[in-house]
């Protein structure tokens, strides 16, 4: 019989594991430096995805000069 693990449980475990490893000095939360070269196709894909997101959530300045990033105005879950 298959064991089904829910997303919430995996997420909770990941948060706890991350925190425990951080406390022991075994985990650094920052992105760090990527030394391993990427294929140019992969870099181009990441660039394209980022630009598509910028198109979907087009940033703008409001009339008071404040930056509006529409992604943060989407309804939130949780």
């Amino acid at each position, binding site marked *: 019989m298959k064991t089904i693990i829910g997303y919430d449980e995996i997420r909770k475990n990941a948060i706890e594991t991350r*925190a425990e490893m951080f*406390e022991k000095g075994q985990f650094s*939360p920052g992105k760090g430096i990527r030394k391993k*070269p990427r294929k140019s196709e992969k*870099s181009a894909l990441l660039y394209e995805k980022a630009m598509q997101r910028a198109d979907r959530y*087009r940033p703008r300045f409001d009339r008071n000069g404040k*930056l509006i*990033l529409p*992604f943060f105005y989407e309804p939130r*879950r949780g």
Partner: protein
Amino acid sequence: MIEDPVKRRATFIAILSKEIVRRGGKSPIVVGGEAVELYTQGSYTTGDIDIKSPREMTTSLLKEWEFIKRGRTWFNKELDLYVDWLGASLDEGREAENRVNTIRVEKDLEINIISIEDLVVDRLNAAKWWGDVDSLMWARVLIAIKRKALGKIDLPYLEKRAKKEDIADILSKALSPDI
């Protein structure tokens, strides 16, 4: 708790900023990977929040909010948030401070963030001096976002900073249309 970690981090920074200002301090400025995460609206993701903010006020607030310090990083297990305090003001100086943008996250919640030009220089430094292979691409993304939606890139300023940091060679690559 807000499920999306990008939105959770942004909301937290905005609340932290509001509280620091309410207590009479200078609003924090987001820098580094968190700044890239915000400008790219989550295309780039980071695990920690890099901020420049008044030391004592930030420290006392994070303690009140049950953050624990390990090295230079503060973390709160319940909130799944990691805050990297990097100093009180921008290393780039007064001119960079004057160029800071303010993001309105929602009504009455705002975040101060390093300018795109200064962030591009930060990424190009990471590409050239730390050997980070992705940083040049993210610098290109930031330049493209600015050009596409937010107005002209300040080329004279970028070139001035690039010359000072000895990254003019890699800046020309970042400004080139070829990926």
